[in-house]
């Protein structure tokens, strides 16, 4: 019994010998001795296809995966919405939390990328040093004391006081609510993570590039925040909505790692207690 494939956009379906659009129709004619087998395979194939899952879940998985890739690739990503559980691309199952904090941020970074990034930083620092050295070799650019220090505060013409080195001295991380003890597993909840970057007085301002994880490094999100000259503290807020899981995988351990202008790690935080 010939079986139709209405959704397969067939152009030369051997089960449809009357298809006027089929190219080289004569060549496609199934020999009489094979027609019975052809029909059996077509019937079995149609039955087997009917047992396949719908594509809705695949579409959702693709959307989630694309969103995750965009969040990683886009350094201007907005606050992450973690209400969608992260799904393993290979297993399709939620991934367990990492047992080692040493794996933080390692999964989504490629070794070659890290090497190139490190090399680029070294080259930039070297170029900066060369430029400074050239400026110090020009009369008028030397500091009155003749100090080799590149600290701008020794330059008398700079009077604003906001020309100091731009660096992050520390990063604090807090989460609110700080405890989930007494809450029911399965209930929805929104956590607010607040990152506080501390900078030295008189800094010249700039952009802080950092990454944050809310699930013990299973995933990380790049972000940045601008600091005005002289500003000694800057905050960044991250919200995460989700469902308290009975296996206590949500919420996970959160941490912030500053990549630029220098490397600083925040403490790891996680709401205390467990749902019941």
């Amino acid at each position, binding site marked *: 019994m010939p079986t139709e*494939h209405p*959704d*397969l956009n*067939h*152009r*030369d*379906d051997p089960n449809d010998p009357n298809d006027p659009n089929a*190219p*080289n129709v004569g*060549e*496609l004619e*199934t*020999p009489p*001795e*094979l027609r*019975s*087998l*052809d029909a*059996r*395979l*077509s019937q*079995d*194939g149609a*039955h*087997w*296809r009917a*047992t*396949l*899952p719908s*594509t809705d*879940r*695949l*579409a959702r*998985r*693709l*959307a989630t*995966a*694309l*969103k995750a*890739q*965009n969040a990683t*690739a*886009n350094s*201007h990503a907005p606050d992450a919405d973690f209400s969608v559980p992260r799904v393993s*691309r*290979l*297993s*399709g199952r939620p991934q367990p939390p990492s047992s080692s904090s040493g794996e933080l941020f390692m999964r989504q970074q490629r070794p070659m990328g890290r090497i190139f990034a490190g090399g680029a930083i070294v080259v930039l620092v070297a170029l900066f040093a060369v430029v400074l050295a050239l400026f110090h070799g020009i009369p008028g650019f030397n500091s009155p004391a003749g100090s080799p220090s590149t600290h701008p505060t020794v330059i008398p013409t700079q009077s604003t006081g906001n020309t100091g080195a731009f660096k992050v001295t520390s990063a604090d991380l807090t989460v609110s609510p700080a405890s989930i003890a007494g809450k029911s597993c399965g209930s929805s909840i929104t956590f607010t993570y607040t990152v506080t970057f501390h900078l030295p007085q008189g800094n010249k301002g700039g952009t802080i590039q950092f990454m944050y994880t809310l699930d013990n490094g299973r995933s990380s999100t790049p972000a940045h925040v601008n600091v005005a000259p002289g500003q000694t503290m800057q905050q960044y807020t991250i919200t995460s909505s989700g469902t308290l899981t009975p296996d206590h995988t949500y919420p996970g351990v959160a941490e912030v790692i500053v990549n630029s202008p220098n490397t600083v790690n925040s403490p790891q935080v996680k709401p205390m207690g467990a749902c019941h």
Partner: protein
Amino acid sequence: MANQSESDRYAAAVQPHLGAVLRVAAAIVGTADAEDAAQEALLRGWQAWQNLQHEVALRAWLLRITVNLCLDWQRGRFGTHHRLVEPLDGATGERMLATIDADPGASLHAAVLDLRQALRRLDESFRLVIALRYYAGMDATEIGEALGMPAATVRTRLRRALTLLREALGESGATGKQSGELEQEGESHAHRAP
């Protein structure tokens, strides 16, 4: 934001072809791994999306990616993942289409089971064109585009595969009319199937 809109465009473009991608993946790696393999193929497509010059070729391009990835998947190039799903008997030649045997609806029909058993004994190249043609539902042109060969070659290979399959079924004495006497044997296959 531009990347976001581009990924949205990609998701919309592949939406009509998700069924075909899923069917191809299921036909090659089995229904249990089909979604994982299909998602992996679609993500590879996204990574190479900028290289696709003509979107009219999107379907063939996607199916080719899917076939190549699934064949790699079957041949054990997915490392840990594959070792986790590899049958304990290590019967490499029987991995392809293995999960088709697990179809509970067809397990009642001994003739169907015998057909699939014979199919699994074919060489991979023949088994592949049968799987793509009858189970994934692709035509010879699509199979040719996916496998990188002329459609005429696909048709020739398909005819040869059907001939070999018919011979295999003839040797085993199984036909649709004899399903009654093979019922018990068919059920034993179903229990052995992973």
